[in-house]
């Protein structure tokens, strides 16, 4: 029993670590999509952010500078997305796809040119990475049964960006539902005409929304390459931006359900690692591929309307044209 407790604790621990980039990207997606801009480009911004963070951290030796570089890079990709679909009213899906493909091409191209390691960045160590933060008293209460291990193993000992991700959720909630900016952002995703009639610029609002998305994806990217791993590797985002997109839809474009969806998908992933090659009593071996595809399958089932109903923001995907 005790073994099982510790084992599940370590699975939950890796759930937290695996869901961190998902949470950040899902919140990014919520900002963008609630303002009416489809964001397929989460994946690309995540990847570009990861590369920028690792490159900057390798160059300067500072993880913080890496984080800043990641955020700037991700914001500039978000602005490109905005330029295409807000200013020039281009197709938002096409633009997002272009960003993803550009990111996967440019990161490796620049990686090879700058570091000569086949697209990888040099290994980071010391201050160039975000190191684990140990909570006060973690060692002291380790011995207390049940709560001790939860505090020490599960809650304490993650790096800064994990906590940032979990703080991003209440922050997103607060911004969206409790501030004037959030009210307007949601309104512009539902009925841009009304917002425009009230004398508020639809364009400026949507640009601010995609910038918020850029910031969050940048943090997620920095987490991948300078906190969770110790270097950038080609295609290291490995579809996590798309899983975050799925989680955002699974959470019906709301921060807290989105968080839960990310935790669920992160948990499935952690479980897949845990169950690899292990035979489950009564079922036998569960194919790891089944666990990997579950987030996508679940999202499709949700979208099909079999688990509640996912209703997208009303004006999503439609460029706003002011009447002449």
């Amino acid at each position: 029993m005790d073994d099982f407790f510790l084992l599940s604790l370590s699975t939950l621990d890796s759930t937290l670590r695996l869901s961190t980039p998902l949470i950040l990207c899902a919140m990014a997606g919520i900002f963008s999509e609630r303002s009416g801009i489809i964001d397929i480009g989460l994946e690309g911004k995540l990847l570009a952010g990861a590369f920028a963070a690792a490159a900057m951290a390798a160059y300067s030796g500072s993880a913080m500078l890496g984080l800043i570089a990641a955020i700037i890079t991700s914001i500039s990709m978000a602005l490109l997305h905005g330029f295409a679909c807000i200013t020039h009213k281009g197709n938002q899906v096409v633009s997002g796809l272009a960003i993803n493909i550009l990111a996967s091409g440019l990161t490796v191209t620049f990686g090879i040119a700058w570091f000569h390691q086949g697209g990888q960045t040099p290994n980071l160590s010391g201050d160039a990475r975000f190191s684990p933060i140990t909570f006060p008293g973690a060692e002291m209460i380790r011995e207390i049964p049940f709560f001790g291990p939860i505090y020490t193993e599960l809650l304490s000992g993650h790096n800064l960006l994990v906590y940032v991700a979990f703080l991003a959720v209440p922050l997103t909630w607060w911004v969206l539902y409790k501030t004037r900016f959030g009210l307007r952002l949601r309104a512009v995703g539902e009925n841009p005409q009304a917002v425009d009639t009230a004398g508020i610029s639809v364009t400026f609002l949507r640009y601010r929304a995609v910038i918020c998305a850029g910031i969050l994806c940048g943090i997620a990217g920095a987490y991948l390459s300078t906190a969770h791993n110790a270097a950038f590797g080609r295609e290291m985002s490995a579809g996590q931006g798309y899983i975050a997109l799925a989680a955002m839809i699974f959470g019906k474009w709301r921060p807290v359900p989105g968080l839960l969806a990310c935790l669920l998908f992160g948990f499935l992933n952690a479980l897949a690692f845990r169950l690899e090659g292990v035979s489950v009593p009564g079922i036998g071996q569960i194919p790891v591929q089944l666990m990997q595809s579950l987030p996508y399958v679940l999202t499709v089932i949700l979208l099909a309307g079999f688990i509640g109903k996912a209703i997208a923001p009303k004006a999503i995907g439609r460029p706003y044209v002011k009447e002449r």
Partner: protein
Amino acid sequence: MSSPNKTLPGWIDIGLIPLINIALAFLVSGFVIWLIGEDPIEAVKIMINGAFGYDEALGYTLYYTTNFIFTGLAVAVAFHASLFNIGGEGQAYIGGLGVGLLCLLLDQYVPLWVILPLAIIASGLFGAAWAYVPAYLQAYRGSHIVITTIMFNFIAAALMNYLLVNVLIARGSGSPESRVFEETAWLPFMHEIFAWFGAEITRSPLNLSIVLAGFASIFVWFFIWHTRWGYAIRMLGHNENAAQYSGIDTKRVIIGTMCLSGALASFVGINEIMGVHHRILLEFTAGYGFTGIAVSLMGRNHPVGIIIASLLFGALYQGGAELAFEIPTIQKEMITTIQGLVILFCGALAFMIRPTLERIFSNFTQENKTAVVE
């Protein structure tokens, strides 16, 4: 997709604007090459020579072109119904599974001329089936086709991974691949076909499926512009409400279009599995499904444009491989970058230069008019 309002003459809309967009995409690509410290002009020279300079290169270029024609047509057919099929990659993957299974099943018993038509049917059915579910969900359950097709790409990858690692893997093999088909299930290479007629060309992976690609292009052109189904598809693409009022069963058209699109994408499997690899293997689609989007956007959803764009991308792929060989700092990811820029400029920013051109053009015509009045 959205149709531009008619303030510019046709040749600017169909000819000049796409050309400027492509030029911009290549200009920025050149800038990236310059940024990483290489000479863009030199790169272009190596690429052109690597893509067309000698027989073998040309063969490779056309072999890539074949894949892009299939995926480009797939995306274009869906575009005409205003549907965005991002799932070409997964449909091609599953289509290849259909081809491979059929070959594994029949290759010891029947000759090629029996296998080939059956393989085309199997491929089409598998690809269409993989597109059917997202199409059904879009038509009847209101879920967005873009999201579901993305999800289906990942599901296809997981499924194929499972099948190859656990089920189809050849006995005693270390890598997740099926057994190699008997030669009866090999599509003849072009150099073999030419040899039958006594002509000698250099060996390359180019095979009979390029002929299939040609037929597919003609079929799509005829189907979209000269049949009532094509008319229904285009009407749905322009205005769903109008299509519904005029008695078109829009739900069935959505499903039919997506199935056709999936079937077209799946023919990548014929080229790759039956034509080149002769076994089922992991990730043989290699991003061709996504490149199809760039091809379709660049070719403006018309088979002629798609063939030209496919040739260009085929040349980029083959020339790019040569380039990676000659200049080690420029790897195949540079081609990915170019592809992204083409999608950006020809797709997302397609109307960026339009207002400017409109202004120039209207100034020009007005000057002419005032000149005539005076």
